[in-house]
Each structure stands twice: as structure tokens, then as C-alpha cells.
């Protein structure tokens, strides 16, 4: 019993001595705490740009050690759906990409854009290129990529047959005929994105005003009018004369791109955004851009189409607005933008960017041309857009232009309840 008591006393003494001696020792220096990082999320749909953005983000984080940027990427359609759901749950990304037109209008409707009017980083984007990101006089998003929705053409084939981009509709038809006679498909067209792309240069000089499609959705102009029916007739003419490849409506975007890369066609009716991937598929390909001029040379108003498909914006409900603005400003620095452009092959809206690839230098020539902002993106009611695109498919599928125009107008009337 005595022994046990002794043991207890001894243990207590040892513990007290340990504590006292420990307390007398030097304080261990605390490990330096990492500064708390602000995490911002950047959401977009361009999976092909992941590596380029990763490299840019690394540089941004090195320059701003207190900010961490997370990239979240979804396919373009899922991106929109997810974005709206996240905004409603007040859990949206801090910085995000958005398309112009109907999709931009939806985010404006939800009130989820932070007004970035007057921000310094906007200065590097020419005022007319900022327009697609504006609503009610406020700048909500800034176009980052500059796309020319004009057919891409194979310069090698054109040189072989001594062809030049034509200046009028007659010339365009003659060009197609020469190509066809030499066994080359003049235009590779696809049913997936082709009608929505090719309709823009086909319409640009036929429309009675630049905002004709806006007037259609307001009920002020009709698709059954001469300007639209003429455009459909011109589509029909190209199809009937065999200037598109066989079975256009069964060809998907990837199939069309493959045909063009294999040099089975002279023009690809998509846009400048295809030039980098075409080159990747066929490194020997020399490409240029040309738009069909659907009127006589003296009536030409525009040489081509431009658009912005990757607009960058900040979430109004972001808890890290300052960090988000810093990141956005970083993306718009010309040297950073140049890194992105040359890595992804995309032309940008930013002034002072040095382009290095052959394709980007070719696109840069179009900055000086008179181009119209993509009419399709001026439509903010998606059903109206679909009705117009479908009328082109109907004509290519064999429907008379007048009937296709009437069908489209009936759908527009139903949607806008006129």
C-alpha cells in the first residue's frame, strides 16, 4: 500500500518537474503561417485552352501570391446551364466566360453581371469591339476572342487555279463553277454549325439594315420579305448547282473539318476559329478568309463578319471582386493575351498583341476590313434564331425558299405573339 502511494507521489513529482523544466526551455519558433489565400473560380467552356490558361494562372499567382485561381471547364451548352443554376444558388464563379446574344441577355436578365464600366483594363479593347458586352449603357462583359465568321479557304487550291477572292455574287458563282469543273468541292458545309455561321456573311449585304434580325424579333420586319427570301434563294442556288459537298445535312462539324483538312474542298463555311485546328490536322495547309459578297460590287456594304464568342465577366455576387478584377486585368495585359493567342491560335480583341502564327497573322489583316458584327448574335430570342437557322436547312433539304421563309416567319410570329 505504502509502495503504491510512493509511486503515485513520485509520478506527480516527475510530471511537475517535467512541466517546470519544459517551461524554462527556449520557446520553439512557430512555423511561419502561410498568408490566407483568396480563392477565385474562373469558369469557361474551352477545354482546348486549359493548358494555356494554366500557364497564365501560374504567372498570375506568382505575381499575386495571396490569390489562387481555380479553373472550371464545362462543354459550352453545359457551361451555360450550370452557370445559371449556380448563379441562382448564389454560388457562381467569380470570373466567367459568356457568349454574346441570347446567352448574354439571359445573364443580364438575372442581374448577375458586375458593372465593369470604366475599369482601366477595358482601355486595350477598341470601343466598337466592346459593344457585344454592353447593355443599357453599362459594360457587363468584355469580348476576349475576336472571330471572323467568314469561310476559310485553301490558298493552295486558289493559287493552283489562279483564283482570287471575288468581289460580287457573280464572281463568287464563277469561282465555285471553276472549282467544281476541276473536281474540287467549292464549299464544305455542315449541318451542325454551318447554317448558323454561313448565314451571317450571306445576309450582311442583303439585309435592309444592320439590325434587320433584331427588327424581325420585334415584329418590325418579316422573313417573308425580299431580302431574306433572296438570301434563301442564294443558298438554294449554291446547293442546286452542286457547290456544296453531297448530303450537306448529314455532315457534322467534325466531318466537314476533316474534308477541308484533307483538301477535298476549297472553302470551309465556318470561321476563323477553325484555322488553328485545320493547320494541326494538315500542317501543309495555307489558309485565308473570304466572305461571299451576295450583291454587285457597288452595293457591297461589308467585306465580312466579326464576332466575339468568349466574353469575360465578373459575378456581381462574388465575395472576391477585387481579386477577380485583378485576374481579369491580368488576362487583358497585351503580353499575357499574346501568350494565350499564340498558344491557342485565337485572335483577340486586345490592341498591341503580337501574333506569331501564320493563321493569326492572316486574321490580323481582317482588322482593317469593314466587317459587320455577327447578325445572328443580335437575336436575343433563341427560338427566333432557331427558326431562321432551320429555314436554311429546309431550303437545303429541298423546300422552296418562299415556303421556308413563310414557315420560319410563322414560328417567329408564334413565339413573339404577333
Amino acid at each position: 500500500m505504502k509502495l503504491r502511494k510512493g509511486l503515485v507521489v513520485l509520478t506527480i513529482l516527475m510530471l511537475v518537474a517535467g512541466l517546470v523544466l519544459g517551461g524554462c526551455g527556449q520557446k520553439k519558433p512557430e512555423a511561419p503561417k502561410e498568408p490566407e489565400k483568396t480563392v477565385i473560380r474562373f469558369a469557361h467552356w474551352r477545354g482546348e485552352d486549359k493548358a494555356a490558361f494554366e500557364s497564365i494562372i501560374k504567372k498570375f499567382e506568382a505575381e499575386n501570391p495571396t490569390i489562387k485561381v481555380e479553373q472550371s471547364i464545362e462543354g459550352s451548352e453545359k457551361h451555360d446551364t450550370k452557370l445559371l443554376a449556380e448563379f441562382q444558388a448564389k454560388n457562381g464563379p467569380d470570373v466567367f466566360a459568356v457568349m454574346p446574344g441570347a446567352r448574354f441577355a439571359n445573364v443580364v436578365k438575372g442581374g448577375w453581371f458586375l458593372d465593369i464600366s470604366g475599369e482601366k483594363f477595358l482601355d486595350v479593347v477598341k470601343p466598337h469591339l466592346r459593344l457585344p458586352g454592353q447593355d443599357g449603357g453599362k459594360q457587363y462583359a468584355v469580348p476576349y476572342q475576336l472571330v471572323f465568321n467568314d469561310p476559310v479557304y485553301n490558298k493552295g487550291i486558289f493559287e493552283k487555279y489562279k483564283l482570287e477572292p471575288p468581289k460580287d455574287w457573280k464572281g463568287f458563282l464563277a469561282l465555285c463553277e471553276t472549282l467544281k469543273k476541276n473536281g474540287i468541292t467549292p464549299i464544305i458545309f455542315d449541318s451542325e454549325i454551318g447554317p448558323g455561321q454561313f448565314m451571317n456573311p450571306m445576309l450582311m449585304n442583303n439585309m435592309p439594315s444592320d439590325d434587320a434580325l433584331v427588327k424581325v424579333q420585334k415584329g418590325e420586319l418579316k422573313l417573308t420579305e425580299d431580302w431574306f427570301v433572296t438570301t434563301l434563294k442564294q443558298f438554294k442556288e449554291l446547293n442546286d448547282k452542286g457547290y456544296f459537298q453531297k448530303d450537306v445535312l448529314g455532315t457534322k462539324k467534325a466531318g466537314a473539318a476533316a474534308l477541308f483538312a484533307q483538301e477535298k474542298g476549297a472553302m470551309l463555311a465556318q470561321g476563323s476559329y477553325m484555322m488553328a485546328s485545320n493547320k494541326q490536322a494538315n500542317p501543309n495547309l495555307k489558309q485565308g478568309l473570304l466572305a461571299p459578297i451576295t450583291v454587285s460590287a457597288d452595293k457591297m456594304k461589308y467585306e465580312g463578319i466579326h464576332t466575339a464568342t468568349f466574353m469575360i465577366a465578373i459575378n456581381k455576387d462574388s465575395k472576391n471582386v477585387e481579386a477577380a478584377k485583378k485576374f481579369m486585368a491580368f488576362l487583358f495585359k497585351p503580353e499575357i493575351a499574346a501568350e494565350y493567342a499564340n498558344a491557342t491560335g485565337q485572335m483577340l480583341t486586345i490592341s498591341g498583341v503580337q501574333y506569331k502564327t501564320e493563321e493569326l497573322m492572316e486574321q490580323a489583316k481582317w482588322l482593317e476590313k469593314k466587317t459587320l458584327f455577327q447578325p445572328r448574335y443580335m437575336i436575343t430570342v433563341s427560338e427566333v434564331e432557331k427558326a431562321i437557322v432551320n429555314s436554311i436547312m429546309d431550303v437545303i433539304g429541298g423546300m422552296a425558299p418562299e415556303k421556308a421563309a413563310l414557315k420560319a416567319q410563322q414560328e417567329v410570329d408564334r413565339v413573339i405573339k404577333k
Partner: protein
Amino acid sequence: MRKYWPLSFFILPGLLMYVIFFVFPAISALGLSLTDWNGITPERNFVGLANYKEMLTNDPIFAQAFGNNIKYMLFVVFFQTLFSLIFAMMLVKNSRLNVFYRALFFLPTIIASISVAFIWIFVYDPSIGSLNTFLTKLKLDFLIQSWLGDKNIAIYSIAVVQCWAHIGQVMVIFIAGLQSIPKSLYEVARIEGATPWQTFRHVTWPLLAPSATIVVAYTTLQSFKAFDLILAMTDGGPSYATEILSLFLYHQAFNHYKFGYASATAVIFMLIVASITLLQFKILRANKVSY
């Protein structure tokens, strides 16, 4: 009865899940279908039955989608059932070769629909697709089609892909049904001098009826609710030729942001599926066979 009431607690988790994930969304869809909600702004106005009226009386795309649904369903139900039965009868014996072929036919079932769609987009491509190239090589040029571009055949072209992807799966059900038929019945038929057709007609088919009913019920619902394959292959095009109800609903909600209207479509869609299920349930009960 009283002594069993504590057992009801065992069904509570399942019931709770059912209420949260089915009953509640179904009721909320019903509520939303009476509004003009755009899915973006919080405002929603009560519009009564306007969405239903518009859909059922004034929307040609809804009518076309419903018609496409029926065409798609009938094609898939007939050909998927027929070919899976033929393959099942060919591969019913458990030999090594048959087991290999069963696995081979089952393989497309485990491939994701999106991958199946991409494979077939290239098969059907009119210029570089293997199907038209194959037909050209066989000098069967007259059979060459714009498989996904022709409004009259696009829906059937996708239905073929649906059959290709699921025949192996349905075949397994038929094989199980065939293997459960007592061999003695075939012996009797053989002794009685029945021809192969008579054996099929009077022995195999009647005893396979329960399996066939399950197959038809499953295939009907599966084809009626098809979505991802069509979305990836044509997205409802060209000119709504392959738009079916599920896709119509999706486009209304996520392309046109008409969530109220899409909810009304969902309610109608749910009613159609429920009616088909009920009808099939009755047929299934009537087809019970004993021997």
C-alpha cells in the same frame, strides 16, 4: 396488425428518398407548369393552363416531337425485340463460342451513349463515313443515303443505333427465358414429329411470352425516354425531324429558358409514360404462364 407497425420504420428511408427525389419534384413541376417562369429571374406569374393550351393546340414542334417519339418507339420495340430474340435463339447453348458471342453482343450496352453517338456519327457521315463507303465498295450505290441529314430517315437511322446498342442487353433476358423452358417439352415435340417452326410456335413462343412481355415493356419505356443518343447525334435536327419529347422539353428549358412551358411538357410526358407503364403492367399480368 398492430404488432407489425414498428416494421413501417424500415420503409421510412426509402419512402423519404422517394418523396424528396420524386414526389416533391413532380409536384413542383406541376406547380411550375402553371407559371411563365423563365428559370432566370425570381418572378413567375400564374398563367393557369395557358402553357398546356399553347402546347396542345398551337405548337407544331410539340406535335412533331410526339409523332417522332411514336415512330422511334415502334421501330425500336419491333426491331430490338426481333433481333434480340433471333440472337438469343442462336446463342442459347452454353458453349464457349456462344458465351464469347454473347459477351461481344453485350459490349455496346456498356459503352456510354455519347461514345456510341460519336462512333455512329462517323459511320453515317455521307462523305467519309464507313457505311456509304462500304455500300459503294459493294456496288450498292443506290442504297447510299444521307443517314442523318434526310428528314425522312434520320429518326430511323438513330433508332438503328439504339437497337445496336441494346440488342445484347435484351438478348440476355431472352436467353434466360429460353433456358428456363423445360427440355422435356422439346423432347415431346420431337417425338411427336413437330417441325422447327411448329416447335417454336407451340412450345418456345408461348413459354417465352413472360420474357417477351418484360422485353417489350422495358424497350418501350427505354425508347420513349431516349435522350442522350439523339442529343449527341442530331440535337433534334434537321428541322426538328429527330426532335422527340424529352429533347423538346430540354430545349424549352435550357435553350429557350421557358421553364414553365418545359414543366408543362414534363407533366404531359410523365402522364404518357405512366399510361404506357400501366397498360404494360396489365398485359404483363395477363401473360402469366404456368406449366
